[in-house]
């Protein structure tokens, strides 16, 4: 492989990772956008989503990577797996909001954030205790089809994952920009009180936001499994932190920003791993987070957050 091939290959890997981080970052950014809360539970909603997807695939009779499907059956199975992961995570996110966060809405200080840490920890340990500490072989019905362009390999699964991520992001963008509920969300992001006064049902908007964000995290959880062929109770922590960095990098509260930030973080991870060293990846990413916060706290595309009076 020539140097250029290596670079191109890592760009492909980076974009794949980035698509996943972007989906995860959207959940952070949407929640922060409307209630100005860093939702640490999101880390492990993603992880639970990955397990839900794996269990769903296992329930449909898949085990390991040997049972491969093509064409429509593959599409059907994937749609079903995405549905389970997204619905399950979405409901989990809503439940967390409803029972742990809503009673604390409007409480000043660190209490809501501490609660999300507690929820995150609960999810993490429930999975650890029920599924065990070993990493799980993720059932993957996708074929290993790949194309070679010179020294560069492009897998079918990568193309599929890009397509799914793109589809979800376009759908979300449409929802936020064009639908009534999406506009209510935007209104709340700007000024919660004013939105309430013109008749926006704040609780409903918050619930929908948690549902959408968590559902996207569930999708990201499935994508993680399909991409790496494994899942584990540990994945939420690292991926969550990287995705949060992506959200800040793009501009917290800013939906296109989260997508851009996600892809950038994915690229940094893959290129940094190639050209520096994998063991320094996290150090590079957090240093980047600090640099962004110091020099451009509004992120690349500007931040959109509620005005607090």
């Amino acid at each position, binding site marked *: 492989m020539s140097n250029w091939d290596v670079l191109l290959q890592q760009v492909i890997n980076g974009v794949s990772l980035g698509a996943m981080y972007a989906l995860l970052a959207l959940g952070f950014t949407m929640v922060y956008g409307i209630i100005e809360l*860093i939702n640490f539970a999101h880390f492990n909603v993603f992880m639970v989503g990955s397990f839900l997807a794996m269990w769903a695939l296992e329930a449909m009779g898949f085990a390991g990577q040997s049972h491969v499907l093509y064409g429509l059956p593959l599409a059907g199975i994937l749609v079903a797996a995405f549905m389970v992961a997204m619905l399950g995570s979405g409901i989990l996110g809503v439940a967390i909001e409803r029972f742990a966060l809503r009673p604390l809405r409007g409480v000043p*200080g*660190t209490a809501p954030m501490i609660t999300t840490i507690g929820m995150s920890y609960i999810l993490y340990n429930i999975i650890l205790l029920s599924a065990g500490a070993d990493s799980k072989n993720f059932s993957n019905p996708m074929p290993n089809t790949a194309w070679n362009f010179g020294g560069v390999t492009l897998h079918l699964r990568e193309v599929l994952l890009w397509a799914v991520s793109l589809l979800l992001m376009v759908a979300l963008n449409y929802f936020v920009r064009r639908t009534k509920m999406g506009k209510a969300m935007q209104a709340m992001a700007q000024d919660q009180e004013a939105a309430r006064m013109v008749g926006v049902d704040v609780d409903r908007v918050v619930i929908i936001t948690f549902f959408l964000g968590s559902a996207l995290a569930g999708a990201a959880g499935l994508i993680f499994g399909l991409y790496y062929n494994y899942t584990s109770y540990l994945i939420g922590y690292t991926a969550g932190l990287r995705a949060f960095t992506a959200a800040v990098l793009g501009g917290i509260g800013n939906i296109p920003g989260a997508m851009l930030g996600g892809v950038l973080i994915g690229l940094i991870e893959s290129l940094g791993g190639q050209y520096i060293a994998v*063991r320094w990846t*996290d150090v590079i990413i957090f240093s980047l987070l600090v640099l962004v*916060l110091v020099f451009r706290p509004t992120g690349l595309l500007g931040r959109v957050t509620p005005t607090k*009076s």
Partner: protein
Amino acid sequence: MSDSQVKPAQEVASQPLGRSQSFISAIRHRAKSEQFRPYLLVVILMAALAFPYLDGNEGDIDAAANALAYAMLALGLNIVVGFAGLLDLGYAAFFAIGAYTYGALASYQIQPEWSSFWEPFQWLGLVKHLEAGGGIGTVHFDVSFWLMLPIAALVAAFFGVLFGAPTLRLKGDYLAIVTLGFGEIVPIMARNTPTITNGAQGLNGVATPKLFGYSFGVMSTPYYYLGLALVVLLIFISARLKHSRIGRAWLAIREDEIAAEAMGVDRVKLKLLAFAIGAGFAGLTGTFYVAKLQTASPEMFMFPVSVMILVMIVLGGIGSVAGVVVGALILQLLQSWFLQDLTQWIHALGDLTDIVFLQKLDLVQSIELIFGIILVVMMLYRRQGLIPERAAVTALTYDQQNAMPSRSSVEAGLAPLHRRTIDPGKPLLDIKGLAKSFGGIKAVNGIDLSVMPGSIVAIIGPNGSGKTTFFNLITGLTEPDGGQVLLAGENITGLKPHRIVEKGIARTFQNLRLFPKMTLLENALVGAHTRTSTGAVGAVLRLPRVKREEVAARARAVEVLGIFGNRLMPRIEHLAFSLSYANRRRLEIVRALVSEPVLLLLDEPTAGMNPTETLELTDQIRHLRERGVTIVLIEHKLDVVNEIADKVVVLDHGEKIAEGTPEQVHSNKEVLRAYLGRATEAVATIAAAS
């Protein structure tokens, strides 16, 4: 709270202020015996000292020594999270830094080649010359544990400043995520730099402390006593800090950052201080802990450790010194003493009842799950923790609540409200062309204003005319785009808010920004921040100078609170959130006055007050002027303005449209147009005629 603190408050309600000396001395006395009841403390300490002899089990003593280490960590995190309100999720990083600082300099890990460079260090006893099988030999670091305790604390504090500085300027939320990142990076660094830390295997053979030739060795008892001494020291430091100028400034930042800044607190500096002291506690603990274990590995300092310390302070009571120690001891001792037994009991219960779930439940394995549940449950149902930061205050009696408002005359026998001498011939405040735009809107568009010393200037104008922005520009809360603000000839444009308070401008807020979970007295004392100088070290040592300063500040705060007579005095130990709306306005004025302003900016001081209260306050504002405070106020109630203003300035759409005596302004056509619309010629004529 004991009765002795409340009784004087009851007395004062029925007494004129001048004779309430007993009350003031009670307030002074309170500075000394805060929170801890001495006899209880002695009993606990005796029990703790006797514990190793009473128990005698090496395992129990070891667990207790570890629990003490975690109590030290909880005390440190409490300064950051509890006092200053900054959520630090990577606190274990500082623990690690302290641990590795000592570990690396008290083990055989780093062995550079010997050279003459090391000779002075050898002479000082910091290194040893190892001569192994010929050659020049190597250096063996052998720095004393006792020396490393403060050094490791300082190193950790330094890293605290380093990590905190970039992000403490930002809103608190980001700090949580950045500290989470640092908490992640530090163990990675430790793993990736094996030359210093021996990587994932961890440091081995860390030297144990020696005291007067006695080596601590591997038995737990000496560590237990050392840990106990350190916990007592850190409790002492925490308690002293909390009830000092520094501690009040931290609480003020935690309660309302903007108001704290507007009252003279340098928030970046104080947040850094909290971060550094918190990190220092962790560095100290790291040294202790590593010396006890004689090893240090990256796994000892990962995220779960940070969470565990957080759970300890949440359980015990965020901000409560006694609470966090109890929280740490409960959780640690629960894990090492009871969880095993408890699990066996549950299994027995499961066998008895044939419930499979109970038979399989392993609480030792589930400890992190329990931590998560504790966090959520405490936040939802008992945010103040097991031992709340503040004990309940005795309610006012019926008589006190329904007492006739009395107030001592403002001028009676009080010290001057500020100590500056002002040239009466020159304008005190001189503003030229002050401007600020938000987006395309010119909120304040080139306003000039000159305020003579000893005058009362009222700013009126329709809502949205830029009055509050104008105040924000003067007090530095908003950075002006252009123009100049001169205070007694000195250019103060664009200074930070806390610097402007120092210069002598204090303000109140239209939408009330008190520190709700601080007492009235503490609220007032935050106002004294810029007029006092006690630092962290001074607060801990409490030398005579510091004591004098504290007593004087308290006496002054009480005097100023007395301006409003029995409106505020009986409630002086109450938390500010319990006040009525009008009393909150009064307390804001008190807080501003305690900062000894030459110029007082009042933003709608009578809003929400009934006519009687409004009259009372109008009168009091006039008295303040008589005592040398110049006043600029924003006011909607025109009868108030007519009554007290020497000069009225009218703003509309960010511009000054009129200026003059109340009478001149009332007949001004521009003003009438701004308030009533265009077709007001007739109204103007009538106004002129009347």
